[in-house]
């Protein structure tokens, strides 16, 4: 899909690693990337639950220092900014994309929208908390030199799960 291609390009501009995969190979991709037996701090979603990751990773909803991978499903992707959108009703839901060293985000292709307006017009009051994430955490506060992982993830990997036709 043309929109997806543009989205991938914007994400890459924003320093993200992007893979477009189909639903069937998603699990295998995650296992290859994260590694069997790894501890993963995650935010449950229907998609993530359906993958049956419990027997492969040590999944937890409680963070402690030393957990390397965070896993979450983004609710939307926005082409304009080349970023992900996470909706949250609790503060715990915000943490898997924030605390670990590497954030692995899943995004269903059908949830890619063009612009901010497309997102806001879909949301209903009362609004959830909304976080836009466009790339890994960054700073350039020392002599303007770019450093990734200022406080949050040093890396952002996005797996776009392609639509099935």
């Amino acid at each position, binding site marked *: 899909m043309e929109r997806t291609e543009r989205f991938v390009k914007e994400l890459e*501009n*924003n320093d993200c690693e992007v893979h477009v995969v189909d639903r069937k190979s998603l699990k295998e991709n995650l296992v290859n990337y994260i590694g069997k037996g790894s501890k993963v701090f995650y935010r449950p979603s229907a998609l993530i639950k359906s993958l049956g990751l419990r027997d492969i990773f040590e999944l937890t909803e409680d963070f402690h*220092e030393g957990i390397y991978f965070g896993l979450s499903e983004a609710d939307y992707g926005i082409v*304009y*900014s*080349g*970023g992900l959108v996470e909706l949250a*009703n*609790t*503060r715990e839901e*915000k*943490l898997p994309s*924030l605390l670990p060293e590497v954030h692995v985000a899943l995004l269903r292709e059908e949830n890619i929208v063009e*612009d*901010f*307006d497309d997102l*806001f*017009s879909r949301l209903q*009051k*009362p*609004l*959830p*908390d*909304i*976080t*836009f*994430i*466009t*790339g*890994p*955490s*960054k*700073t*350039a*506060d*020392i*002599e*303007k*030199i770019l*450093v990734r*992982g*200022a*406080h*949050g*993830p040093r890396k952002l990997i996005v797996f776009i799960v392609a639509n099935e036709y």
Partner: protein
Amino acid sequence: MIDFRKNADRILKDPVVVNAVQRATLHALKKREETIERIPDFEDLRDRARLAKEKVIGDFENYLKLFKKNATENGFIVHEAGDAEEARNLILKILKAHGARTVVSSKSMTQEEIEINPFLESHGIKKYETDLGEFIVQVAGQRPSHITAPAIHLTRKEIARLFSEKLGMNYTEDPEEITNFARNFLRGKYFKADAGMSGANFLVADTGSFVIVENEGNARMSTTLPGVHIVVTGIEKLIPSIMDLPVFLKILAPSSTGQRQTVYTSIFSRAPEGREIHIVLIDNGRRRMLKDPILREALMCIRCGGCSNVCPIFQLVGGHAYGSVYSGPIGIIWTYAIFGHEVAKELPFASTLCGACREICPVRIDIPRILLELRRRVVEREGGRPGEKILINVWAGLMTEPFLNKIGFRVASKVQTVFKKGDKIKSLPSVLSSWTKFKDLEPLADKTFRELWKERKGS
């Protein structure tokens, strides 16, 4: 009184700072230009942002009321503080109610404006700045020198020495390792802090939301991890609707750091059960600005820092010369409006009125016009001598005739030559006498800022 000339003289003796400021500002401008090239409707977005801000300024109390109502319905606890002292006491009361001893905080100009840190310290509450640049400046016991690059005046060597002496870091000059040290140091604080504080970039009237943009993730941490969150923000941050937010998000980062968007944008619209989120709305002179037909326009500022980056004076001396939390062209106006005539009466003259700030301002604030008016007020209050009045009038004449703007500075430079030779110059309130010291100050030279800017980009 803030002595701009003295501050500037001191800074100009430090080539490292002068160099760093110049590099930082020009870098941001270059990135801005590259980014805007990819936003074809940027000018239109600026108009729309301006319009949204005009709506708020035109019907301020109603928008504020709407925000308070919606924010309260969202579960936020909304407070209002008339001045800095009231704000400090309010914040202290909230912190005390939670037995807070340590606080983590993300960047907030408004917090600096009300000088909350020393106040909390004197009540035994330690507040850590968590934005890396702000953290460095805090450890150094200094003030930020640039709105988006607070520690730009310090070299990596200085930061390395600072961290190893004061925080026990194993000495390294590698920015990545220094950042990592700060990351780990502050990680420990986030999880243990009793409260988190932040500012807000926008307050959304029709949803009662507040919005924070950042790159590092420290604001997300400070607002999410501790048990209570206090937002400290000026009442001017209002925008009418969540549907206006995209426009502001599209102009803010490009005008500021030159990014298309910042890494993180957090929109808060609910207080989760069992968790207190306080919003402290601060007036501290803003309603006074609102009632002032000339100053009210400055309330539209979204604090992108663009006008500082493009200002030939700022590029030369950086933020410290302004002696205030608010620096650069718009900072002069804010400092005068918030801290008053006696403190800020020299500052309106720390400008060449070249108009670059007005050109870059994403909400099209006519900064030179306001500066000119402030000069008029200063001269009036200080009882300027005839020579000064003439000069001010010359400037006024130049600046209010738009068609003269382009050639204005050549004219101005001629005016300068005339006055330089006369003895009246000695009594001028720094308007030209200081500029004659800055030999390489460009816009008063024979070329306009635009011409110089084009040349500089070409080289």
